[in-house]
């Protein structure tokens, strides 16, 4: 599905002394089957923005379109199934006695029959390499295991767009790698992924397009190379290295991913 945000504005606590303008007219499109990375500093509006994608927050201005249709006209439960949102630190919302039951919560809310629910639970847990956690209590798991269980809980709805808010924050490197691999796997299966992150290096690895937010506005949007080479000082390590070399060796091009950069450097060395 194609998810479009058109001039979305959001004001917290309007009309009070605590009024904050979090989004000041954001327009962007999540194309079917792409990974869109959303980057920006603390307070740039990233987390507010993603909550508009399944209308947990209703924009105070502008509109959200699902395949061209105004999202407010769709059934909320339907919209939330199609756009799966994983909050920051999603493990804080685990509640069931076992991981299995926790992951089963969303499919049961959808009213699926028990066989289908079990199938989805196993499938999502396996996708996160958490199959062996099924019978355990979510409160007895490690941080990384909890995170995987919580993401499985959203994946079990089989969303068409998966929105992940800082999914790798505080994770060990191995779990992080697994998660990035999962994102690419979902994309290859035709699911769009929105990845919100502070970590430019990981966004560089998986994103097809990048949107940079600043103070509630879109500062830049485009391919990772377009966005990151505009301001190499605020770019992933790969881009910073390549742009330094570019001053004397322009033939290095504009690599972004780690492997791409390595190849470009090797080509330079060989030449």
């Amino acid at each position, binding site marked *: 599905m194609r998810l479009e945000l058109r001039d979305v504005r959001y004001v*917290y*606590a309007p009309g009070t002394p*605590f009024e904050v303008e979090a989004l000041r007219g954001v327009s962007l499109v999540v194309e079917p089957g792409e990974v869109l990375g959303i980057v920006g500093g603390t307070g740039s509006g990233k987390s507010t923005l993603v*909550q508009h994608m*399944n209308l*947990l927050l209703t924009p105070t201005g502008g509109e959200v379109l699902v395949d061209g249709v105004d999202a407010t006209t769709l059934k909320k*439960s339907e919209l*939330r*199934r199609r756009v*799966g*949102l*994983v*909050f920051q630190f*999603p493990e*804080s*919302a*685990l*509640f069931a006695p076992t991981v299995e039951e926790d992951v089963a*919560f*969303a499919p049961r*809310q*959808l009213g699926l029959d028990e066989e289908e629910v079990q199938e989805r639970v196993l499938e999502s847990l396996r996708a996160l390499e958490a199959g062996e956690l099924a019978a355990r209590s979510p*409160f007895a798991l490690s941080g990384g295991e909890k995170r995987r269980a919580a993401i499985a*809980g*959203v994946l079990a*709805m089989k969303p068409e767009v998966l929105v992940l808010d800082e999914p790798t924050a505080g994770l060990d490197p191995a779990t992080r790698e697994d998660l990035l691999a999962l994102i690419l796997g979902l994309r290859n299966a035709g699911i769009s992924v929105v990845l919100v992150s502070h970590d430019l290096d990981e966004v560089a690895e998986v994103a097809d397009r990048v949107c940079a937010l600043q103070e509630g506005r879109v500062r830049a949007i485009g391919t990772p190379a377009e966005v990151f080479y505009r301001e190499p000082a605020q770019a992933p390590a790969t881009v910073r290295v390549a742009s330094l070399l570019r001053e004397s060796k322009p033939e290095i091009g504009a690599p972004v991913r780690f492997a791409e950069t390595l190849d470009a450097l090797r080509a330079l060395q060989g030449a």
Partner: protein
Amino acid sequence: MTSRSLGQFYPVASPVHDLDPRAKILATAVFVVGLFLIDSTVGLLFVAAALVALVTMSRIPAGTFLLLLRPVLFIVALTVLFQVLFSREGVTLAEWGFFEIRSGGLSLGFFLALRILLLVSSAGLLTATTAPVALADGIEDLLSPLKRVRFPAHEVAMMMTIALRFIPTLGKEAEKIKGAQAARGADFSEGGPLRRARSLVPLLVPLTVGAFRRADELAEAMESRGYRGGEGRTRYRELRFRKRDALALAVTALVLLVGILL
């Protein structure tokens, strides 16, 4: 962001905010006890006028202050309704089947409503004009004579401060978890009372788990900064009971005394 509610500190500069918290706590106690000794509506109206003057002095906007009273309006309405419908005193004003409205019920209802509103307003004014930390300091100091009989005055005050401090934190946490569960298809407003109560489980379990986790973290943070209870602990901000604090207390007592006599 949650809306302002009863008992939330409203930080502005005013003579009322500036008073010693102990004076305010004692004055509120005097006020509350006095309210129950007043038996005439005129007396209550006199005290109410004085309270209105005090709220004006506190520079809390009238609208905001009235908002503080919203949670008790239901109780007030219920009290008035019962008095009006079931009182058997005074002249009958209207009849409707089994019920009759009598003048005695109306005036008693008004009297009780006024008393409840004044009660809540005085407590609300105390917490709206006193920062939670100052409030706890005041309570600790007022309880300190009990330390001689080994009453843990400091610890009790610290517990109160922490409890007050964490209300907004837990409120935010609850909002977040509600959002996360709504994203998984939870609906907190659908179905009958039983289904609604059951739908709260995915909210209450993580909230409780989170509260325990926070308590652990806070205890560790306090210990790592050398906190070991009230014994031998000194203060950065010393409380000072000045002339105007004594004056405020005296005026409060006087107003209540006049109210009782009226």
